[in-house]
């Protein structure tokens, strides 16, 4: 289900256009690394942390913040 959620958001036209996400990337997208690009990574981390690991909002943000390089 959470993989389906990830793919559905990546299908958003504006997002896909801006971050050049194509169908192949969407079909391969998953919650676990490695990630094709940063937007998939961001979204996967949020979904995994919130939906799979049931973390609180603050923890989710801290995990996302760790992606800042």
């Amino acid at each position: 289900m959470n993989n389906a959620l990830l793919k559905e958001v990546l299908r958003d036209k504006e997002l896909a256009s801006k971050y050049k996400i194509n169908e192949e990337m969407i079909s391969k997208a998953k919650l676990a690394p490695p990630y094709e690009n940063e937007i998939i990574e961001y979204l996967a981390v949020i979904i995994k942390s919130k939906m799979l690991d049931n973390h609180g909002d603050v923890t989710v943000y801290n995990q996302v913040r760790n992606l800042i390089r």
Partner: protein
Amino acid sequence: MANIINQISFQNFYNYFGSFDKNQYEFSEGVNIVVADNGAGKSKFFNGFLWIFYDEVLDSDTKTRKNIKNQAVKICSDKAKNEASVNDFIECNVALEFSDKRFRYRISKGFRLKKLKSDSSLTESADWQVFFKELEVSKRDIQLLVYHEVYDSDEQKRILNSLIQPNLREYSLFQGEEVDKLIDFNQADSINRAVKSLTDINKYDELEKITKYVATRAEGELNEIIKSSNAASLNYTKKLEEKESKKNSLESELEKLVSYENSYSLYKSEVDKLENLNENAEGRKEFDDKIKEETSKLKELKEEYDRLVEKLNERFFDGNFGWIAIGCENEVKNFREKLNSYREIRTLKKASKLNDHSNHQINLLPPDSPDSVTLQTMLDREHCYVCDREAKKDSESWKHINSLLNRKDSSQNKPIQVFNNDLNDFFGDIQLGAQPYVGRIIGIEESIIRTREKEQSLLDKITKVKEKINNLKEERSHLIIGGDEDNLSDARQIMAQYRGALTRLQKAEEDIIKSRTRIDGLNEGIRKDENELSRMRPQDTPKEYEFHFEISSDLRDAAQRTKIRVFDEMILKLEKMANQHFQNLIKHNDLSGGILKFEKNPIGTIDFKYIDEKGNEVTGASEGFQRMKVLAVLMAIISVNPNGYLYPLLADAPLSAFGKGFILGFFEETEKVFPQSIILLKDLYDKESDNKLNKLGNELLKNKSVSSIYLNQIPENLKQIEVYTEHIKIK
């Protein structure tokens, strides 16, 4: 992979007397059926599930679910209790085995019952001591044979909940009419609750919230960095303030929107309720018209009855009926005889008196007969027509005829007093007065019987009309929603309330639309500000934080749009799937059903309508169709979920009395939606058939989607305390 119930077994549980191995049912994927006639253990079987999942059983006396703790003595087999000796322990248990893709689990609940007296009552709690056992859970790897006990209570609970999640149990476990309550189409929230429970749509809400939180935190962090560097220009700070102000306005507008949406929900419920009342008011008016018509009939009948009763007295004296003379046949005969006798004597006496009279002409013939013309003819022809003899001229006879012709007056007119008290006229008056009744005497009894029949017929008609009025009132009373008819306004007032509620609903809808427009405007303004701010940021702003914010806000916006898109797509799919399921469910029935219509309402939830081809709302569908609507919508909600449904369907008599068509449709469709179903029903039972299945049961026996069919039976001629259920596996 879905969870599959592999086995359920009972030990001394209700009719399921004896050890587990005697009361063991094996099930697999697909449709599993337990056929049982009334009293052969369907609901008791279902109670096994209720015990496992809810620690409850359905009390057949009160039709309510009761906690198992208070029902122990009642649910233990009567036969086992009867056969037990004092201080004996009886085991009463239910055990269920299920498997997922990796493990097979065994869950057991039970108690022990100790008999305290030799004459213990089978139902009296005080005569028995109950020892409840803890929940027992064990599991084994699906490839292995040995079960291992699970002692951790949290793990036990997790395993139990994994079989059917608590929030899904109402959709997975239902009994008879409970189906109708699964989705209440009159409750706006009911269908949305089912959608939220059975689909993953909630995840999109959750994602929208968390991405919004992440974006807000990312923006805050970026602005903190910019502020701390003191490199921000005045214009940047000003634009930032403008954006903050818009964000505050947005928050305020979002709060208003929530308030408008709450009002909308409130007014929608009001409209729905009044819509029903309004429909009911129209329905009531129809009943009122019928009641009025029947009341008028009743009034006429009562008046006719009153008139009949009033006329009963008159009929005693009315010449057309003459009831007063009933039973007087002999009196009339006696009176005639006596009157004749009296008149004979009187005539003789009169004749004797007339002999003494100067005229000497006695006429014993009736007065004035023969008449003068006849007498003259007799003289002319010299023949007496009275005695039919010759009367030659100047003979004695001829002279007598001549004297009669020449008599001065008839004897009748002669004032001759025969008796001192002559009652001839008195008796004559009686005879004359009684004449109308005398002719009726023979028919009086018949006349009374007919009158009684008419009276009875009127009374019957009055009773029937009264019954009809009462029935109409009874039917009418069911149209009153909210119960108290006295406090309900009349139809006109309801209509006025309905119009008022509609106006309020429309106002709330307009408020929502305006608010959404303002929110869109503010969001657009904020996005523009963000774009401007991104250009105005000091050059030494860390790019990674800028990117962090940008990517977070893009995900926030994408999550928002995705939620709306997925929900819209889901509504379309729901409608398509629900209609497919509905048509399949009713395809074996002669009547065609309407169209199930799903619409997104202004607050972003689903409105449901049942319409005809022309788009008119259909009301008054039969109970069978209503239930099929619920099942079709439920199946559609499950079907739109990409992962399908992972739990079994356990249903007791879900379609009782709905007929073969619905049952067949139900089995065919259930198999497509539920990975496993265990259906308990009597509708396939036929006592006279060789295998005890009726025609439909035998059709299902050949159906590939039906995995197993069990038949429950009670051996014949058993006393109540000896009753136990036997079962055989037919398929």
